[in-house]
């Protein structure tokens, strides 16, 4: 509802409209530059590109550090998202349906990673887990990413739950469902759009994360963004642009799937509670 209102407001209001267009330009134009340079036939990262070829895509796919990093990033993102949902859903249920005192505090606690700078979190994790507890770097990164995604999981699934009538679960119980069956047959279907949204959002956030991954990287486990960052520092060829374009294409595919399954309005409506 508020999304619709702000959209019409934006269209009507000339200043807001101009700002919105400017916002899209600032966001989209650099992406277009990157995509364009990725198709160059030349060997420098330059716009406009020298000729047209798919050469750098081939190079990017054949470049082992990138491909290894993709696998690492995917592993990390999938696991961290899964963990965040596994932890986040019970927390959401406790906040929205539980009869526990201090709900506000609990909610605050689980949303705090949103406001604490990631570098601080990363440093804390580095000192406590890697140095203090001698956890390996993948476990530490996984914990760090999970913490990073938890607020999204709690917030987005919470938004779905807040929309659902609490009497639904009570009705299910009254009709003979145990608490667990009521959860599986009634609450979970209500949570589905929230779970999908939170999952996608979490996955993308983890996959693109730089600060935490940068702090907690080691030689044998590096995520894609960190690897690309390293690469850019050493050489300036269009392979990075090609890699970025591939990531972008994958993201677009995910976005389309998301739109088809739950719809963007729902996903982002879920966040602006």
């Amino acid at each position: 509802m508020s999304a619709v209102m702000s959209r019409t407001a934006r269209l009507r209001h000339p200043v807001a409209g101009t700002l919105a267009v400017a916002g899209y330009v600032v966001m989209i134009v650099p992406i277009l530059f990157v995509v364009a340079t990725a198709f160059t036939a030349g060997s420098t990262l330059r716009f406009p590109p020298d000729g047209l070829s798919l050469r750098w895509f081939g190079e990017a796919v054949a470049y082992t550090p990138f491909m290894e990093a993709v696998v690492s990033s995917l592993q990390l993102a999938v696991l961290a998202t899964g963990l965040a949902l596994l932890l986040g859903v019970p927390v959401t249920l406790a906040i929205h349906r539980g009869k526990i005192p201090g709900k506000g505090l609990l909610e605050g606690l689980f949303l705090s990673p949103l406001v604490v700078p990631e570098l601080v979190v990363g440093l804390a994790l580095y000192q406590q887990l890697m140095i203090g507890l001698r956890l390996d770097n993948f476990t530490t990164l996984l914990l760090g990413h999970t913490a990073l995604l938890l607020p999204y999981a709690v917030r987005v699934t919470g938004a779905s739950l807040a929309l659902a009538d609490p009497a639904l679960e009570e009705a299910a119980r009254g009709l003979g469902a145990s608490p667990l069956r009521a959860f599986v047959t009634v609450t979970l279907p209500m949570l589905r759009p929230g779970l999908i949204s939170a999952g996608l959002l979490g996955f993308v956030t983890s996959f693109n994360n730089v600060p935490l991954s940068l702090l907690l990287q080691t030689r044998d486990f590096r995520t894609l963004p960190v690897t690309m960052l390293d690469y850019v520092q050493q050489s300036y060829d269009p392979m990075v642009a090609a890699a970025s374009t591939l990531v972008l294409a994958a993201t677009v595919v995910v976005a389309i799937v998301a739109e088809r399954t739950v719809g963007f309005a729902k996903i982002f409506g879920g966040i602006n509670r």
Partner: protein
Amino acid sequence: MTTPAAELVGVSQRFGSFTAVDSIDLQIPRGRLTTLLGPSGCGKTTTLRMLAGYSAPTSGRILIDGDDATRLPPEKRNLGMVFQSYALFPHMTVADNVAYGPKMRKVPAAERRRRAGEALELVGLAHLADRKPKQLSGGQQQRVALARAIAIRPRLLLLDEPLSNLDARLRVQMRAEIRRIQSETGLTVVLVTHDQDEALEMSDEMVLMRSGKIVQSGAPRDVFPAPADRFVAEFLGYENFLTLADGRQAAVRPEHLRVLPADTSAATSADGGIVLDAVVLDVAYRGVDLLVTLEATDPAGNAVRLLADHRADTATGPTPSAGDRVRLLAPEARLAHLSADSTAAPTAPTTAPTASTAPTEGIS
């Protein structure tokens, strides 16, 4: 006497320091329709929720079919609850909603479908079985909720303000509809409402609540002419309150106060009613009748403002107009003697001189 379908024994519910339901004793007669009636916030929903098992009483016991059910979770009570919001499962079809209860009871699929069909038939919605709840009108959703609750063959059917979300016409239709379903199925029904007309029309037994306590209960025919105290009287639409010569309080309805010419002899009151001299303050035309506002002195000598419905077609004497001096007759049979104490019997005489300061509570 058979065991009541359900019974509350000294049941209280406290939320922090606030007592929402205060040690009530209540028996729900089997196969009857009992209404819980009272103003907003008096604890009706809280009582129903304790009966259904959604919240445990702070103290007291709940018996269902004579067995202690105080600690039984809702899924083990086998009660059919219809929520005010209907609470239909939005991701299931109407048929699946209604079959949900039997499914949880592990009834085989074919039998489930048959029972759901039967319940939908009962509420007249068999043709909408494949719709989703969102595609139904409010009244239809309400019937589905009813069918869903009936499909589990519940020991009691609990309805929390089932008609409050419907428009006025539909509400009146559904009163009869719920009564029909009740008598066809022989179910024991507990219905929560804050509408006295609804309660009067539908109940076998009505239970009036106020501030977490039961003030009066009984069949509408017994309760309506004899409200226990001023609160109940006001809630049931009594507008006029008098203090009698002996200090007792009495209430009379506007339609029972007769406006007579000033020279009517006091002998008219041979039937034992009260005759008061009054001045007409205002006359409002209402179609079927005139609403006459009067000022009078009651038998105890207090100035009181009274309302009388004057029906030109049945009333004797001239039509009153503002400024007229008239005589008012309140027939004895129409006087409801009130008790100052909410818990006392309706006709118990009150000697307390404070009767005229009986509590007046806002009613919604």
